[in-house]
């Protein structure tokens, strides 16, 4: 187990380093600098500022300085808001984004699985068609369109939910709905098809031949096996939800990390770009690692503890 974790850790660090490097290259090759949009600044001020933020140094030095800031977990102050450090922004934005993300994941997983199981049990019935109809819509409508539709109907026209911002559980409903519908639809379809397949398996027939109650067969014997593929795609879904938060936070004016991330790119706020990218990447990489570990727990045939070739 320890060996496996160490190996994974090494790969994770390598992945992160590649992301950092790519981000640095992309970031510095975008035309413009953090100060170009400032009307007040003249030549000397700009030079002083560049000096202050080490932007006058050669590229490789800047790169090394960024690496150092990442290793020490100190990204320094923001360029646009010099009175705030990047860590301040992350500390403020992350809890909100995390809340949005985690509620979305919970809603998507629970409703997706429920919908999928119901559809499979009522195969070719009305519930099945209804559930799959919802799923097809959920997959084909992009979250930003859904978000605007929801705002228009449920917030503006019918005034059931607040239009934007992040204050109470009522504020969470629309953004979570907009963000969760896509993944929910994917999970529902996948659960349905694997469930249908699992239900024809011999071990389900055997469970019935034992005289077990139907709900026990579904929960204990069928669902557990049907959820394996769902766990496999959880990594991809998490990545999708994470990037979805950028868009949704913008639309609903939610003061999460996504907002800082998008703003930082618009403003070429290098330390914030670097900080948020590293943070997002590290978070996702760790999540994917946890998904792999969870897979081993659900499927005893996959043993993460085993050495290779065994």
């Amino acid at each position: 187990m320890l060996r496996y974790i160490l190996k994974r850790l090494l790969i994770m660090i390598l992945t992160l380093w590649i992301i950092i490097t790519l981000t640095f290259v992309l970031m510095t090759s975008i035309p413009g600098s953090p100060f170009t949009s400032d009307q007040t600044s003249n030549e000397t001020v700009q030079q002083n500022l560049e000096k202050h933020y080490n932007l006058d140094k050669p590229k490789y030095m800047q790169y090394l300085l960024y690496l150092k800031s990442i290793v020490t977990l100190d990204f320094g102050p923001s360029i646009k808001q010099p009175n705030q450090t990047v860590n301040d922004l992350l500390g403020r934005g992350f809890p909100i984004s995390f809340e949005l993300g985690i509620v979305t994941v919970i809603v998507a997983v629970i409703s997706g699985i429920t919908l999928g199981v119901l559809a499979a049990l009522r195969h070719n019935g009305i519930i099945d068609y209804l559930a799959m109809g919802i799923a097809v819509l959920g997959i084909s409508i992009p979250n930003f369109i859904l978000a605007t539709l929801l705002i228009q109907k449920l917030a503006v026209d019918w005034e059931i939910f607040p239009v934007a911002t992040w204050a109470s559980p009522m504020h969470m409903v629309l953004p979570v709905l907009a963000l969760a519908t896509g993944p929910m639809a994917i999970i529902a379809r996948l659960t349905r098809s694997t469930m249908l397949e699992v239900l024809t398996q011999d071990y389900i027939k055997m469970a019935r031949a034992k005289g077990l109650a139907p709900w026990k067969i579904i929960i204990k014997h069928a669902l557990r096996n049907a959820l394996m593929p769902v766990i496999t795609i959880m990594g991809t879904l998490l990545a999708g939800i994470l990037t979805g938060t950028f868009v949704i936070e913008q639309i609903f004016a939610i003061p999460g990390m996504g907002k800082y991330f998008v703003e930082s790119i618009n403003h070429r706020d290098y330390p914030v770009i670097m900080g948020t990218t590293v943070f997002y990447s590290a978070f996702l990489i760790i999540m994917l690692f946890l998904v792999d570990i969870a897979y081993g727990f659900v499927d005893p045939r996959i043993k993460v503890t085993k050495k290779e070739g065994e």
Partner: protein
Amino acid sequence: MEKILEVQDLHVRFTTYGGTVQAVRGVDFHIHKGETLAIVGESGCGKSVTSNAIMRLIPNPPGKITKGKVLFKGQDLTKLTEKKMRSIRGVDISMIFQDPMTALNPTLTIGTQLVEGLKQHRKVSDSIAMKKALEMMQLVGIPNPEERMKQYPHQFSGGMRQRIVIAIALICEPELLIADEPTTALDVTIQAQILELFEKIQEVTGVSIILITHDLGVVAKIADRIAVMYAGKIIETGTKREIFYQPQHPYTQGLLNSVPRLDTKGKLQPINGTPPDLFSPPLGCPFTSRCPLAMEVCNKVYPDSTRLSDSHAVDCWLQDERAKKLLATMVTNKR
């Protein structure tokens, strides 16, 4: 002897997009206490459907028992509610499936799968269930049962898994065990071991066994009586002796000629042709198109069952008294 199960005129149909499959078309047989009855026949003749129908495990839709009775100790199982039927499955009648590689749930430990039936039906404590499970593991010959119970199916070989499946089937001490091709998926040497295990189990528990197979070698080894099935009907029944030494139905004779035996010295004769389509089975004897002795009447009318002894019965016009007389007159007329 007490009849533990009696199947009368059982009909099962499947309604599919392509039409209605008449998978079982009037099957009669019975099994006594402590006996082993083998149901033999080519694949597709309705053996599995028959056994699933007894357990009421036919998927509905598309399948349905359209006619007939399944009397278990006098009680008609086809009339029971699903709930009552659940209390019979695994308790009074158990079933073993063909492929031990897929019959066990890959995500649950052997121990869990062993005791869950017991816990559902007998409401016993964990410790008593575990004790019983250990006992069963020992009975079916699994070494280190205590350790093995904590393991998962993929950690066992095919033969071991079939032993576990048997242990699961027997844990509530059923009176009838239906084994649907229990050795077909196994290596020959393992097959022999599993058949021996069946004999041992029957000795210890007195369970009646319906053994479904297409392998006459298996039948020869452990059956007391044999029912030969063809195109959804049982066309001949008898004791092992009667079927092996005095087979009367041309299909039974053909089956016996198509397996290697010591006295045929390698002259194997497969039965030519294929069984009829069960979407529209023939009115008369379904074997007509393949039968070397077929007569005109065979194609038109299904033969009645002719009793040859207390235990031996056959559905063939050749054995029918009326046909025999007719044949005799035809022969004399020719002279």
